[in-house]
């Protein structure tokens, strides 16, 4: 198996090659992309832990190395699964959608190169380098989407720049204090670090890169615009995988620098720093859930759900006991798969109908049944309902919070999970069920090439939901390597201090219940199939059934309760305009039209120089 550094190089050169191929023919370029990413997944699958590679060395005394840690391997495999399946989806999708397919394929490969680099870097600097590559790759793809996606791309870069610059500031302050950057050495130094303030500053600043990238509370505004306007298939990668880079950095900042040992425990075993991060996660759950219920554009709705699920992951990781951490990591897997499935089904819907507004569509299930099945299993997993894997991670997080007795956070997670029933149901009822619009009568199902990745993801979610052993093995190996007591599970029974449950019996019991219902259904007389326009309309007969569909303002009565909610986008918008006006004032001040202005300022500067006598 080729070492990781070669893999990254293959990806970088591959992007140039795929650019040229796609220039020649789009489909072949996309196929090349898929093969490359699939090969990379294969390589990563059988990487053994602990294998290190030396790369280059920029700062003296610091070796930039790749080291395969189980945490990195877990994250990279999830990302590669999502990327390879989405690139399989793109083979058909690229025929019509992005404005510049060649650049699209090239940047996807650059981004995956950056991603692999991030997950395997062993010290803070290499992580930052590959982080920037990934951001660069994704940043250039976003503007290929709808009309105002240019603005979205700018917002996206600015927010992640805030995070990465704070991260860079922390890295260099460590460097000039200790002179080392490897994770384990840094954590050793931090352990016997006297000043509490410095520890706080380091961990918070490093975590801020994760907060920016996974859309946690203060920096969550970019998610709505970017996901809403990015090219459809790419928003699957964007939310399914790029957001996970943020969770990776959060996982590192919370567990690799073991915050439990570093800081005194503030509330039942959770240090104050974690507690603040958990509260950031809580607020982002609340914001994500309640804002998602309001959205009418389906992609922005799921973008807000990524904010909420990002909050879930942070809460899971922040709790720092074995169940909570495992729950957070498992939720990374679930959300990546579920978000990818949902965005792919939306990409298929947009590919056929051309619009993302929920109330302009309706009854698409009769024309696109397989897309509906994918979306259905996606939302069942996203909302955390038992037969699918989504529930396992939420169950772990609930248990962890309950053992810690953190009731307010527990309430907010309940609000998040019940709220997720509401907002995932809105596109289901508005887009797929209900009356089929006349203009969508001849919409056909998407081609099998697009369906296969969707159905693979569906089977994956259901399989892991019933038999979570493979993912749990990974998590136990991660927890061992990080020194947290691993969760115990045997076969399909997951045990926690509060109780246990068996995914297999739940699934079989559900199947038994289904069969009983089926038997009852078959015994009794068959219902006569009635087509969609034969409805009870209060005795009045209608001819135009487009209007007979309830999708606009689906939860209007609930939204009315919090109509005057504080909007952070407007807040940041005001900040931006404030700085712009400040900039203009200074601009006028210095860049005078008349030369006298320049002479005046130059003389002032010379005076100051002499007076201070440098």
């Amino acid at each position: 198996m080729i070492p990781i550094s070669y893999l990254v190089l293959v990806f970088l050169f591959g992007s140039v090659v795929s650019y040229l191929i796609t220039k020649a023919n789009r489909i072949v370029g996309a196929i090349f992309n898929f093969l490359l990413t699939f090969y990379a997944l294969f390589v990563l699958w059988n990487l053994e832990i602990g294998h290190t590679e030396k790369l280059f060395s920029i700062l003296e005394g610091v070796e930039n190395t790749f080291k395969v840690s189980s945490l990195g391997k877990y994250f990279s495999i999830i990302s590669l699964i999502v990327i390879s399946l989405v690139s399989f989806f793109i083979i058909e999708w690229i025929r019509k959608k992005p404005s510049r397919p060649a650049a699209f394929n090239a940047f996807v490969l650059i981004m995956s190169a950056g991603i692999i680099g991030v997950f395997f870097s062993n010290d803070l600097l290499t992580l930052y380098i590959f982080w920037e590559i990934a951001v660069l790759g994704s940043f250039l793809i976003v503007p290929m989407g709808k009309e105002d996606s240019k603005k979205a791309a700018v917002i996206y870069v600015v927010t992640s720049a805030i995070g990465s610059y704070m991260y860079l500031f922390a890295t260099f302050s460590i460097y000039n204090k200790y002179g080392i950057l490897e994770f384990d050495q840094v954590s050793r130094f931090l352990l016997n670090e006297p000043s509490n303030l410095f520890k706080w500053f380091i961990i918070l600043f490093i975590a801020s890169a994760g907060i920016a990238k996974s859309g946690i509370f203060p920096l969550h505004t970019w998610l709505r615009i970017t996901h809403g306007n990015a090219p459809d298939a790419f928003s699957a990668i964007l939310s399914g995988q790029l957001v996970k880079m943020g969770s990776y950095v959060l996982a590192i900042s919370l567990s690799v620098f073991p915050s439990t040992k570093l800081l005194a425990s503030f509330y039942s075993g959770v240090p104050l720093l974690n507690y603040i991060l958990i509260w950031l996660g809580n607020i982002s759950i609340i914001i994500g859930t309640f804002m998602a219920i309001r959205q009418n554009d389906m992609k922005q709705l799921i973008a807000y759900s990524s904010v909420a699920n990002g909050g879930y992951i942070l809460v899971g990781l922040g709790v720092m006991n074995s169940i909570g951490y495992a729950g957070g990591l498992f939720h990374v897997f679930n959300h990546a798969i579920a978000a990818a499935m949902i965005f792919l089904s939306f990409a298929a819907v947009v590919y056929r109908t051309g619009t993302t507004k929920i109330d302009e569509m309706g009854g698409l299930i009769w024309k696109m049944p397989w897309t509906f099945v994918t979306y259905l299993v996606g939302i069942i997993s996203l909302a955390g309902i038992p037969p699918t894997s989504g529930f396992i991670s939420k169950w772990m997080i609930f248990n962890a919070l309950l053992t810690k007795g953190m009731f307010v956070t527990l309430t907010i997670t309940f609000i998040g999970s019940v709220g997720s029933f509401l907002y995932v149901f809105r596109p289901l009822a508005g887009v797929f069920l209900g009356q089929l619009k006349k203009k969508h009568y001849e919409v056909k199902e998407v081609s099998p090439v697009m369906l296969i990745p969707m159905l693979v993801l569906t089977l994956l979610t259901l399989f892991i939901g019933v038999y979570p052993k493979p993912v749990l093995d990974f998590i136990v190996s991660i927890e061992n390597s990080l020194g947290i007591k691993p969760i115990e599970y045997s076969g399909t029974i997951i045990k926690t201090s509060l109780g246990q449950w068996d995914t297999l019996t739940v699934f079989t019991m559900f199947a038994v219940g289904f069969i009983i219902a089926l038997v009852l259904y078959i015994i009794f007389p068959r219902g006569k199939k009635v087509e969609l326009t034969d409805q009870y309309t209060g005795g009045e007969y209608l001819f135009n059934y487009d209007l007979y569909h309830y999708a606009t303002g689906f939860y209007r009565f609930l939204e009315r309760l919090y109509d005057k909610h504080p909007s952070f986008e407007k807040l940041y918008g005001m900040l931006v305009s404030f700085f712009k006006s400040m900039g203009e004032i200074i601009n006028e001040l210095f860049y005078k039209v008349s030369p006298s202005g320049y002479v005046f300022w130059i003389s002032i500067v010379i005076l100051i120089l002499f007076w201070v006598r440098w």
Partner: protein
Amino acid sequence: MANHERNIWEKIADQLRSKSLWMLHYCTGCGAIELPPSMTSRFDMERFGMGPMATPRQADILFITGYLSAKTLRRVIYTYEQMPEPKYVIGFGSCTLNGGIYYDSYATINRLDYYIPVDLYIAGCMPRPEALLEAFNELMKMIRKGEANGWKQYKENYDWYKNNQIRSLGEVLVHDEFHE
């Protein structure tokens, strides 16, 4: 309609159907006001297992309580066809029987079972709730004996009913400015 060809399941089903009849009443004319007293404490229709239903999809009886103009007859036919299979119709009051006091009006129909099969009529220019309950018991007996199959007639000579409807109404579902 001898009831010997009903198999055992049909007989049991008819017993059950007679014990729990769900009613969709089309409150037109002056008969609608007779229904609330038959549901509340004095006459209590619910002890026979009967109760009002909101949609034709779940209703067994379509209960027409007064005169039907050409316009409302269209809605009644449309609703009747939306009801699931074993369905019964009760015409309440003389307006459904022979047009009642509106027999000479240009708008109201004179004989309901010309358009939809009616299992049972209750005569009277708005009969009292006692007559209503007596009619319900009569209908239950008919169901148990298997005689109340107006819906079978509707299915068998469907086109006869349709011609009558077209003859009187012109067209059942009319296209005008209110139904574009």
